[in-house]
């Protein structure tokens, strides 16, 4: 069999296993052994096809040694410097870029096709966000996918509109919240007694807080909020607890119905946490580990470290991802402790990184 066909056969086989696992575990069945075998097999497949991953694996400084996880995890920073894809650029269907709010050059995550992303996103959101309500009104505090074609968040929210909604209002125009549209959309749901899911970034919700003044809503029963992301690179930060309090008061939903979503450009899958829960539960095809940043070995339960996510849906990029987030693992859930700032460190400024990014563009 020609090499190209062997490659495709391998990919197809893994893809089939990933989809089967997503289907099997999305109702809560835990199949950790199956997951772990699959993750290891995906890593072996990628090692042969992703030079950056192969180099990391071969790194001989004893840094990515045997830690029981079976393969190393690629730091998210690498996405800013190397193409992380197991396929030729000509096969790229879509590329998501990391947000430009932090510093300098943006990371890129190319996709050959979005079927695994879709399967993972739909399964995780059905279980973690929409639960018993398959079709709801959506009000979305984010740019439309066509306005932000490189945003994985906008893409995902666009898919939610297709999968889970009876209709959606997008109340963000480019980078600006349309407060009037937000109020009209929520008032209409309240008048109709129609449950609504209000979805957006944490920063967009803070923006809405500033804009809405004294206006409050009593959203109908079954309504919920989903917020995602932090304040990296933004001029203003609000604590999670303060935001939760503000949102329950503003929208009249219980804390249990305010869901936080954990995702990033470098992953295909998302994790969810209800407002009253302590940590995020990874879906059954995702393995979350907290590792010591010095030696990258798993820490003891309850010990803080760097969050590592092994995402089976990342078939065409890298299955093992070392995030920049500090976390602690308890009872299978990870609690975020905040984000390590990455290369923009020690008070060093955004503009230094931007100056270096300008230099990198020339080399």
């Amino acid at each position: 069999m020609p090499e190209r066909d062997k490659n495709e056969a391998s990919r197809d086989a893994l893809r089939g296993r990933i989809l089967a696992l997503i289907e099997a575990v999305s109702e809560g069945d835990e199949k950790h052994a199956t997951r772990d075998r699959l993750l290891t097999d995906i890593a072996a497949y990628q090692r042969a096809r992703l030079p950056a991953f192969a180099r990391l694996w071969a790194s001989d400084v004893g840094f990515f040694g045997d830690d029981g996880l079976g393969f190393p995890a690629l730091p998210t920073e690498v996405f800013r410097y190397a193409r992380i894809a197991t396929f030729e650029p000509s096969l790229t269907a879509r590329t998501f870029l990391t947000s430009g709010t932090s510093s300098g050059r943006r990371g890129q995550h190319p996709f050959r096709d979005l079927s695994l992303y879709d399967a993972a996103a739909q399964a995780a959101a059905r279980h973690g966000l929409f639960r018993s309500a398959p079709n709801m009104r959506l009000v979305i505090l984010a740019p439309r996918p066509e306005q932000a074609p490189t945003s994985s968040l906008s893409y995902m929210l666009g898919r939610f509109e297709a999968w889970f909604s009876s209709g959606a209002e997008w109340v963000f125009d480019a980078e600006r919240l349309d407060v009037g549209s937000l109020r009209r959309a929520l008032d209409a749901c309240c008048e109709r007694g129609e449950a609504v899911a209000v979805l957006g970034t944490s920063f967009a919700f803070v923006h809405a807080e500033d804009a809405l003044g004294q206006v409050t809503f009593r959203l109908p029963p079954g309504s919920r909020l989903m917020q995602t992301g932090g304040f990296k690179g933004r001029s203003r930060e609000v604590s999670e607890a303060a935001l939760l309090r503000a949102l329950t008061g503003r929208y009249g939903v219980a804390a249990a119905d305010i869901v936080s979503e954990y995702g990033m450009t470098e992953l295909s899958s998302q994790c969810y946490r209800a407002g009253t829960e302590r940590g995020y539960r990874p879906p059954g095809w995702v393995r979350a580990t907290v590792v010591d940043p010095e030696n990258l070995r798993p820490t003891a339960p309850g010990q803080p470290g760097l969050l590592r996510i092994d995402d089976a849906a990342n078939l065409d990029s890298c299955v093992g991802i070392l995030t920049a987030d500090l976390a602690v693992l308890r009872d299978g859930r990870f609690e975020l402790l905040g984000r390590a700032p990455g290369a923009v460190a020690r008070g060093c400024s955004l503009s230094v990184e931007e100056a270096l990014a300008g230099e990198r563009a020339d080399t």
Partner: protein
Amino acid sequence: MDALLDPKGALRTSLRGPLAQSTRLSLPMVDWTLDRLWVATRPPRLARLFAELSVGSAGAHPQNEPGVGAIVLAGNVYAASLLPTLAMLYRGTPVLLKASSREDVFPRALASSLAEALAAADPELRQAVVALTFPRDASALQQILSRSTVVHAYGNDRTMHAIAAALPEGVAFRPHGHGFGVCHIARGATRTDATMTRTALRTAEDVAAYDQRGCLSPHAVLVEEAGDGLAFAKRLAEALDRVAERLPPGPASLEEEAQCAQWRGVAAVLGTLFRKRSFAVSFEGDAALRLSPGRRHVQVLTAPEGAVRWAQLKRLGPHLKCFASTLGPAARGAIADRLPPGTRICRVGHVQRPPLNRDQLSR
């Protein structure tokens, strides 16, 4: 200064422990940095500084400068307050040191020591220098700024912009924003085994000083002889290992370790990584320069003669604070206009020995 910095003095002895705790530098590093301050403030050097300061721009002796001088400090390099404090006091300007809440041991000790010395000459002068610490409080800082006639400030660009915006008209502002240094290893410095080893050791001391936190600290080393880049990187790693034996790094926070893990991951993918717990050196050939997270993490890049990335370095502007080279004095002088204006140019091994002179007041 004797009372504060004399290695045999009780004040300095009592300062070591608290300073190590507040700065999170190791005790040996605290001793090393205090020794350097001691040498830099010996009477002949102070006399030269005061002689420089005695001459105004028109060549006439300046009158006492009215008003109050404020120095707003960051916490990364504890000795930053020394030179502007001495300069302002010499000019008859009382000084208010606003210390960082992260590190106020040295500013307080400096203020106290100078106040005692001034009071010995005239009891009324005891209040000529005062150190204050308070957590982030815009209104308190505004009160200080509004009463000042000259302000030195240390911190990132955002802080500099915020302070500049808050200053009343007519106040002289001397921003000392964040930046970094670069070491340049000219061809002759790697010609023999002995010269390469010697050069690597000097470079290692520049990198290791203050645990690479200072705005002069080298983040990258440019090796002119392209074929020697990898060998120099290995030699630099050995040198950093030796330096760490007598000047161990201070304890790292989880955030710092996390940043370093990300940097090392990129290094392992892009280059050849040499590391131990106390350092990391990445040889990356002709790759672009990238910021280090500190903690003695440094890139080694090739920079062939005639193309020493001059244009790229020039684009870094005020963020390139120091260019240390193995070139001789005449050759170093000849390259000044190829670097951003104001870049400190010095010999490798002398990065953290900035001369106590008027030029440093505006860097």
